[in-house]
């Protein structure tokens, strides 16, 4: 078990390594990769068991792959000397997770909406066979628009998947702009309540809040759980936090500089 300080340090390490991967590559889905780093840190520090009990992690918003890979590398699943091969010819680290390519990756994702369906399938399979193990799944707030997400949530509710926690990365942005402009403003709390799903909202970029929210979602019998992560797209890098939409960025000189500087700062502090 890691304490908050250690999880904060782990988040920083993930962010540094993810930044280095992006710097090496020169482009990438930086916004959505950065907004979930605190959740990755907490989940992989204290919740996801890879031992006798096998828990599953599904990155449904597969384009955030780089920070997931950084996490797995720091945990020793992915060889460190491979980490900067992101998207290179013949790499084991494709932009979107592939469970047959990357050690430690549970599910193949990248077509939005399908990860959460896989998550409810695994959760149901475990539950019906009385197998232990939790399923943790991160979806995007843009991804949430896919009808398939609604289908999966109804299944999760109807089948009372209490071994499933879905994390909604509410970073308010998607490719073409703000979620509320491209799609519609949604009251997620009411939405989940109407489906009979237990939800908790927290500051998704605060280790302590994420941890507390997960605690409130563990061990709730006969109900599926959602953590609404109120996040900032590009969190952890002032430059990208301020950008209108750092979804997929081909880094300019200025952006490369901002990334390099923030890595230096993180390493210092």
């Amino acid at each position: 078990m890691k304490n908050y300080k250690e999880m904060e340090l782990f988040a920083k390490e993930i962010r540094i390594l993810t930044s280095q991967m992006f710097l090496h590559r020169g482009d990438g889905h930086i916004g959505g990769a950065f907004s979930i780093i605190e959740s990755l840190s907490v989940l992989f520090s204290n919740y996801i068991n890879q031992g006798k009990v096998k828990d599953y992690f599904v990155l449904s918003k597969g384009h955030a792959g780089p920070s997931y890979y950084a996490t797995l590398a720091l945990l020793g699943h992915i060889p460190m000397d491979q980490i900067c091969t992101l998207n290179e010819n013949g790499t084991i680290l494709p932009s979107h997770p592939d469970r047959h390519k990357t050690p430690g990756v549970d599910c193949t994702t990248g077509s939005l909406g399908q990860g959460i369906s896989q998550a409810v399938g695994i959760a149901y399979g475990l539950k019906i066979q009385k197998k232990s193990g939790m399923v943790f799944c991160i979806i995007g707030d843009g991804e949430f628009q896919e009808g398939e997400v609604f289908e999966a949530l109804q299944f999760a509710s109807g089948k009372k998947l209490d071994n499933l926690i879905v994390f909604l990365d509410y970073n308010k942005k998607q490719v073409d702009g703000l979620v509320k402009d491209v799609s519609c403003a949604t009251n997620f709390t009411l939405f989940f309540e109407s489906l009979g799903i237990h939800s908790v909202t927290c500051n998704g970029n605060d280790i302590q809040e994420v941890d507390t929210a997960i605690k409130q979602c563990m061990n709730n019998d006969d109900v599926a759980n959602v953590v609404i992560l109120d996040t900032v797209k590009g969190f952890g890098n002032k430059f990208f936090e301020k950008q209108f939409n750092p979804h997929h960025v081909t880094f300019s000189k200025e952006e490369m500089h901002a990334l390099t500087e923030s890595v230096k700062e993180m390493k210092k502090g």
Partner: protein
Amino acid sequence: MSWKLNKANEVEEIRKIYGLTLESLIKEGKPIMVCDADLAGSSGASFIYTKYPNNSVNFGICEANMIAAAAAMSMTGLKPYVHSFAPFVSRRVADQLYVSAGFAKNDIHIYATDPGYWSQYNGATHTTFEDLAIMRSIPGVNIVAPSDAVQFKWVLEYYEEHGGIFYNRCTRKPIPKLYEDGSTFEFGKALWTHKGTDVALIAIGASVNDAIQAREELSKLGISASVIDLFFVKPIDEELIKQVIREHKSVVTIENHNRFGGIGEHIGSIIANEGVQVKLRQVCVNDRYGEVGDFKYLKETFKLTKEDIVIAAINSLNK
């Protein structure tokens, strides 16, 4: 049909032509509706959404809803033009296309971008080597694979005038401009761009350029090759193909698509039906999933390079 090969060495970015052509249709007062599913920013038409709000709508990340809704919109007198990456407007929405567009006989133009290896760094989930197979099997779907910007533009305008269902399988990126501006084409007609006598290279999309380059290599080896830019995958130009298979010793098909359900199979069936004795070799993907990488790597990995065409051509002529 009156087209001319472009003598100049030019390239044109297809997505730019998408935005510009749609804008000129709007300016002419055509009742078009430009639709996207959160990839307007990638389509080349993003400015349409701010400049012409009455001619554009973003559905959000909801491709299934977009296809059925856009197709039905045509019942109100609008001509919908939808865009997304190819997998999300083919694999993901096959039933919406089948029922709400095809069976219901509504109009829809689908710009399916970055098919096959064009998906590059997005990898397998974004790669389509099967979209032609899916689309070909839905009655009434016209499939085009333009080889350059001039053909691409012609399709956009043709659809506006005639309606129907068009699956426009094309990259977003800059590719050589094969035809002169103002060239016109014909529905369902292929283009015999280069005449030869030994082997016929029949290609689609940007692979036509690879075929042209392979032709030059072959001529150095003393092999005379024709190049046929198929353009229409469906309806296929049977008339021209029947002529081509009779006038050559062998045929090579080239497609950035799986062997199954692609043009090679189709042309093979025409050869068999005609009972013509001609060898067929297919340059295509051999039943594989996509992966990430640069063009050179992907073309080599999936055996779709100009060298692969040359080898297939030589092979097809060997007794």
